């Protein structure tokens, strides 16, 4: 505010709509924090187009009906120039219409998800199934075995992801022993565990989500799955989710994401943003890939690049520039929008849990293609 007191033009308004309360509030708060950090950074560096950025944060409360109301506040009252947010797919579905179609505003969705979102003016900056499977699954087959089980929570992301994963598994000579869906809050998995053990499954490619995933991994562990050399794999597992189980219960769990905190050891830029984040927000809300924090960072930076290129802030111009925007540095490495696809290329890493921490075991050679739209 103070340094901008005599800025020539009104600030550019950035809207963040995310789950600040409710079951995934930890992710939403981390995203909001990241946004605050990035905006502060940009403002400190002189703003955008000579104008300051102003941040408007609204709660989506994991409740679609509350969310729509609050998003309308962003659009109609605050008249933001862009909205970034939504974590679950259902939230994206709920708010995209008020933002894009009725609100005529640009929308950036930061979370890893099932793909297939090809709405104009809606840009996705998290990993897609192709990015998470193409290199990961061959690695799993080499380092786990050929027999896969796909236990899943019953909603769109696992369904769509599994279709893709199955294709990759089979193309690489693997075999899916079973694919099964559970209610989202199922917490007893005795039948599933039994099926996994008795079918001698090598890799459990898991898309069961909390709260079920904790008891599930525990039951698997107790049934001797890990002892017998089984491999757990889970593509949304990041630093937050490590705490759901005791370290021993998920020893050797493999995940594939665009960022892990261990990268700070090898990657100075990652070390820089991680440190900056932890300095500003020392609390519990981690800067982690699975909760869309990296996608938020990437999204805001890509948008910044686009605005700079466009030199204007209206939706058409920014969207046109965002269509091919690039950043040289971001969490985990550079990122590039695929022209015409509204999804972005990024580097992907495979990590394995060892004693409660991740170790990077593989990385993509270049930027991975999202293969969407």
């Amino acid at each position, binding site marked *: 505010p103070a340094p901008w007191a005599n800025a020539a033009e009104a600030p550019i308004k950035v809207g963040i709509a995310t789950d600040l*309360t*409710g*079951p*995934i*509030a*930890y992710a939403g*708060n981390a995203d909001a924090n990241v946004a605050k950090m990035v905006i502060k950074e940009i403002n400190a560096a002189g703003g955008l187009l000579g104008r300051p950025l102003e941040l408007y944060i609204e709660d989506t409360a994991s409740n679609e009906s509350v969310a729509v109301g609050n998003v309308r506040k962003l659009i109609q009252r605050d008249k933001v120039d862009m909205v970034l947010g939504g974590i679950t797919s259902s939230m994206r579905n709920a708010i995209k219409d008020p933002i894009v179609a009725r609100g005529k505003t640009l929308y950036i969705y930061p979370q890893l998800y099932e793909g297939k979102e090809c709405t104009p003016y809606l840009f996705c900056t998290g990993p897609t199934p192709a990015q998470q499977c193409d290199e990961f699954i061959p690695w799993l087959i080499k380092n786990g075995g050929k027999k896969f089980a796909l236990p899943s929570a*019953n909603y769109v992301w696992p369904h769509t992801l599994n279709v893709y994963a199955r294709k990759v598994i089979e193309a690489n000579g693997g075999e899916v022993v079973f694919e*099964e*869906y*559970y*209610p989202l*809050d*199922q*917490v*007893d998995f*005795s*039948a*599933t*565990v*039994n099926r996994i053990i*008795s079918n001698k499954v090598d890799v459990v490619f898991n898309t069961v989500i*909390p*709260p079920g995933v*904790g*008891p599930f991994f*525990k*039951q698997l562990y*107790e*049934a*001797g799955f890990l002892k017998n050399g089984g491999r757990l794999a889970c593509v949304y597992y990041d630093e*937050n*989710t490590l*705490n*759901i*189980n*005791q370290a021993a219960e998920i020893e050797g769990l493999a995940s594939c994401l665009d960022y892990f905190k261990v990268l700070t050891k090898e990657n100075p830029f990652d070390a820089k943003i991680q440190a900056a984040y932890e300095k500003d927000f020392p*609390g*519990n*809300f981690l800067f982690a890939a699975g909760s869309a924090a990296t996608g938020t960072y990437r999204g805001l930076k890509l948008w910044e690049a686009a605005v700079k290129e466009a030199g204007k802030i209206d939706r058409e111009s920014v969207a046109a520039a965002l269509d091919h925007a690039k950043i040289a540095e971001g969490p985990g490495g550079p990122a590039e929008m695929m022209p015409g696809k509204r999804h972005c290329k990024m580097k992907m890493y495979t990590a394995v849990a060892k004693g409660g921490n991740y170790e990077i075991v593989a990385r993509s050679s270049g930027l991975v293609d999202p293969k969407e739209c």
Partner: protein
Amino acid sequence: MANAFVAAFEILSFGAIIVLIVLGLGIIASMMGIFNFAQGEFVLLGAYITYLAYAKGLPIWAGMAAAPFVVGALGFVLEALIIRRFYAAPIVAMLGTYALGLIIRESVRGLIGGFYLTVPEPIGGSIDIGAMHISAWRFTIIVITLLVMGGCYLLLSRTSFGLRVRATLENPSLARASGISTPLIYGATFAFGAALAGLAGALIVPVFSLFADLGLRFLIQGFVAVMVGGVGSFIGPVAGAGVIGTLSAALPWVMAPVVADVLVFVLAIVFIKFRPQGLIAGKGV
């Protein structure tokens, strides 16, 4: 054979967990006529206290032992301040306890930052019998559940406490006119139900990990169990919980879990429709 044994154990152990959770709910529903929507949050508090002990470096069993007392005491206070006003109006009670639950849940969510947190079991690992592995902690839960059930049964059947409670619920003004101190009885019963929930939370947190919606997860299941078992007795809800618990663990063995999930509820409602008094018609303890 071995497989069937493991299956039976797993199903039974989930049944025991549900029984444990429903015990307190059932006592409050049967004895006081209140469907306590905050019961899940008492479970959550029990779990949270256990977690706190663990996080502070105390032995976990100490947290587990403290949980029922702390939650019970809280229950006593809440009864005196709030629940007391609801006895004559069961529906208002549902809403009131719902609001109470919301407050507790959201506060705990704030305290744990909305995360899913692990708490190790005091007795970990598995009991190996040949090629079979049985979770030692689940086994412990079954044993404790049986003990607690037995204890409650004795308390309610062998002491005059149960009689006072039932008389008070039935006709409070007549109970007072018979010299029963109804406020004390209400408080004690509610505290007891809350304490059982606290214990349940403490025991299950290693199995399910700690998260704010832990208690909510079992609430509707618990209500249905109470209805299936029959309100008005101690045994009824316990039996109902046993049935619902084992059924929801057993059905996924033979059908798609998503179908099983809905089927349990449909079966339960149809059952209640045609046997409104429940499995065990409410008489005696």
